[in-house]
């Protein structure tokens, strides 16, 4: 596993005309772990999708070296196949050996589910199967969206051990969760609820049609032309220097 890094600079996210967060900085190096905390709808999942490259940030950059694995509420496992068959497809996609599937199922304590169709799994079992997909992929950067959801106490502990093992092997874990997680964090970013709208087109009390800005207006922040400077809401911990290890030179 090559040394993985993850670096977010001045990241801002806009969803549905609402500024969720801005000016978010984060540096993680091999073995690092961060939790994104905060209430529902605050942009935790969006942040993970930006890091994964599935969403474009409104401002800022997300740089990473190393492959990324995302585990969210979508398990991406074919319902009509067995767990082993569904994982085999992803093992082929990740050029992993079939033996990695058995190892991953053992790690998550579900070897007995290998030949059960995915549609028969319970929520927690499906979550474990999705985590097995992440293990099989062997990507250095793990993005976990609410990893504790649906997992029982024992499974949550197992996940904590797996995360610790992954970090010892030089992996990075970035997890979004509104509850404390089973492993220690290098840094916790707490996002707070934002009320900043970047254009007025959501205002329902705009009577005149001539006054209503066009839908394209959402692309342009009102009052400021510098996208990195919009909004006042910043994550509480993000303005402080990110956690660095001694000897790391600044990027």
């Amino acid at each position, binding site marked *: 596993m090559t040394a993985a890094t993850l670096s977010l600079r001045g990241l801002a996210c806009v969803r549905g005309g609402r500024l969720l967060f801005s000016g978010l900085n984060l540096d993680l190096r091999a073995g690092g772990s961060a939790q994104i905390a905060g209430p529902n709808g605050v942009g935790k999942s969006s942040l993970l999708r930006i890091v994964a490259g*599935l969403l474009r940030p409104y401002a800022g950059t997300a740089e990473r070296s190393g492959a990324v694995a995302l585990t969210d509420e*979508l398990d991406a496992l074919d319902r009509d196949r067995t767990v082993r068959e569904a994982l085999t497809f992803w093992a082929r*996609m990740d050029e992993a050996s079939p033996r990695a599937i058995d190892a991953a199922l053992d790690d998550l304590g579900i070897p007995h589910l290998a030949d059960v169709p995915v549609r028969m799994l319970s929520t927690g079992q499906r979550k474990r199967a999705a985590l097995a997909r992440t293990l099989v992929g062997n990507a250095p950067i793990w993005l976990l969206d609410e990893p504790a959801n649906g997992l029982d106490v024992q499974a949550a502990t197992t996940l904590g051990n797996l995360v610790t093992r992954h970090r010892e092997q030089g992996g990075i874990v970035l997890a979004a969760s509104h509850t404390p997680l089973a492993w220690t964090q290098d840094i916790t970013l707490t996002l707070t609820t934002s009320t900043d709208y970047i254009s007025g087109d959501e205002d329902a009390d705009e009577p005149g049609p001539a006054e209503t800005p066009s839908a394209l207006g959402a692309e342009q922040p009102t009052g400021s032309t510098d996208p990195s400077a919009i909004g006042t809401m910043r994550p509480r911990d993000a303005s402080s220097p990110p956690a660095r290890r001694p000897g790391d030179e600044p990027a």
Partner: protein
Amino acid sequence: MIGSLILRDLGRAFRSGSAWMPLAFLLLIAALFPFAVGPNATLLSQTGGGLLWIAALLASLMPIDRLIEPDRESGVIDQLVLRDHGEGTILLAKQVAHWLSFGPPLLIAALPAGALLRLEMDTLGTVILGLALGTPGLAALAILVAALTAGLRGSSALTGLLVLPLAVPILIFGAGALHFGGGNALKLVAACSLLLCVIAPIAGGAALRAGRE
């Protein structure tokens, strides 16, 4: 990579039974048509070729809502994009798999359907050649429309409206070839088909990207 994706989609199409639907649909139309217009051999052989084209076109519409939407909904497309597969590549693989699941079965079904419609051997040959050239284009069109409508509720009514006008050139040249015994009309079918095969992954990929935002 692409090979695994094609095999997976192909397996899904045949396991779920959706691959057999277009085939059954074509045979059903060919079997019902003589009941509707009467068993007049001359009439049937004159109209049968065009009918087969319409049946093939409508049959290609059937699996559209199962092409992209289930994979988008279950996160498969997200996971493929994470692995640095472009949306265009994903759609190209799906396009190939879709054609393999409905093109060749349709060509085979055209043989008994031609017999039910009392088609001349050379007319049937032109129909089958035209379908062989045209079905890749129809498959591409189905993928394009499936990508455009992925994530929309009640999209099945919309898909027909989107596909049918775009499929008209293939239908005109394909059915037109029957009057001239193939030749240039078939070349135009191939040209339309090629154009759609190239455009569909690019435009559909852009639609998937835009739909994710």
